[in-house]
């Protein structure tokens, strides 16, 4: 998908410039854009270096457990059917906490660990369970309080007050996360209803096998 978009944009641009007789402008644009890109990254380095340092302190100090404590009721409601002390629940709480604090790097390993633990509770190993889908919904909409990379990027491109989009980002991220949770609930109920009405047989067979 990225490949298609990338090739598409460049191809269309070059053909377009050729048709309009602007072919001589292509090379200077490439040079200017590439130079721009590198200068943006150089601006980023300073703040990313500082911020990831702070993030490491937050990670090591166990500060995340305070956040997790507050998230517990929400997690229990979002992931029904998972025992509260199960390792999957723990990993999912760590994942949610890390996302909330803007520690994207730390969130992914916890998320993958949560998926592995959820997989142990899965009857059909090639099909996603409802709880897996909920975990995915939370992560793709990524509820973040502090969008660190963006603040750094704004500082690098000369914003007067780089952090002034935190407020609007919180509103947008809440909207997207609430949408994700709401849609997930609707689909969860719809699919569990569909599964019940269509395939009652395998479940009973499995239950019988276990006994």
């Amino acid at each position, binding site marked *: 998908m990225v490949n298609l*978009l990338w090739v598409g*944009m460049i191809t269309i641009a070059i053909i377009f410039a050729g048709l309009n007789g602007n072919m001589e402008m292509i090379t200077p644009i490439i040079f200017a854009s590439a130079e721009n890109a590198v200068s943006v990254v150089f601006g980023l380095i300073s703040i990313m270096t500082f911020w990831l340092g702070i993030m*490491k*302190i937050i990670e090591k100090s166990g500060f995340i457990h305070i956040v997790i404590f507050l998230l517990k009721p929400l997690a229990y409601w979002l992931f029904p059917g998972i025992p509260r002390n199960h390792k999957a629940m723990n990993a999912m709480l760590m994942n949610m906490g890390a996302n909330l604090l803007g520690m994207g790097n730390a969130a992914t390993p916890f998320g993958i660990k949560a998926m592995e633990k959820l997989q142990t509770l899965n009857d059909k*190993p090639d099909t996603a369970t409802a709880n897996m889908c909920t975990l*995915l919904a939370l992560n793709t909409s*990524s509820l973040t309080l502090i969008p660190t990379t963006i603040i750094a990027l704004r500082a690098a491109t000369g*914003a007067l007050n780089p952090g002034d989009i935190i407020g609007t980002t919180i509103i947008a991220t809440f909207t*997207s996360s609430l949408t994700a949770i709401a849609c997930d609930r609707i689909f969860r109920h719809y699919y569990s209803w569909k599964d019940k009405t269509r395939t009652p047989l395998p479940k009973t067979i499995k239950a019988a096998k276990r006994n």
Partner: protein
Amino acid sequence: MMGMALFSVLNIISVWVVPCLILFALLYAYFRGIKVFDTFIEGAREGFTMSVRLIPFLVGMMVAIGLFRDSGAMELFTNLLAPLIRFLGIPAEILPLAFMRPISGGSALAITAEIMKTYGADSLLGRIAATMQGSTDTTLYILTVYFGAVGIKKTRYALTVGLLADLAGILAAVFICNLVFKG
């Protein structure tokens, strides 16, 4: 009027949240006996390499977007999509970002950087792009990594939910920025 009140509330949050988090985190870590400075250096090193790893993404994408816009192709494209853009209220300049956001995080960041460079980080467009970039994550990447890690092939409704949430985040970013930062 409502925009002004909202602006001051959001502004206070924006100004306070980062300093407070730093203060709280440092004190908490210090009193729990963490070697604060050593830990800082360890993380800071990661921050440096992470920035450098962004260079290929930014060069590749900023060149593509730069070509696409300056050749005049973008104008044609946005003219074609004008009815859709008007319907959703998304500014045409933001559209490439809205497309790229769920697909590739690094590329979306590059497009955001390009928008900020071209129109200014403090312009309305720059702020919409920033808010949009910060409000959702890369749906397709997360789907691939998470499901791939445990060998799930039938992902059921996960992609639909992810993309709907992205759309909601994108529209919310445009709406709230227009309310708070316009004028």
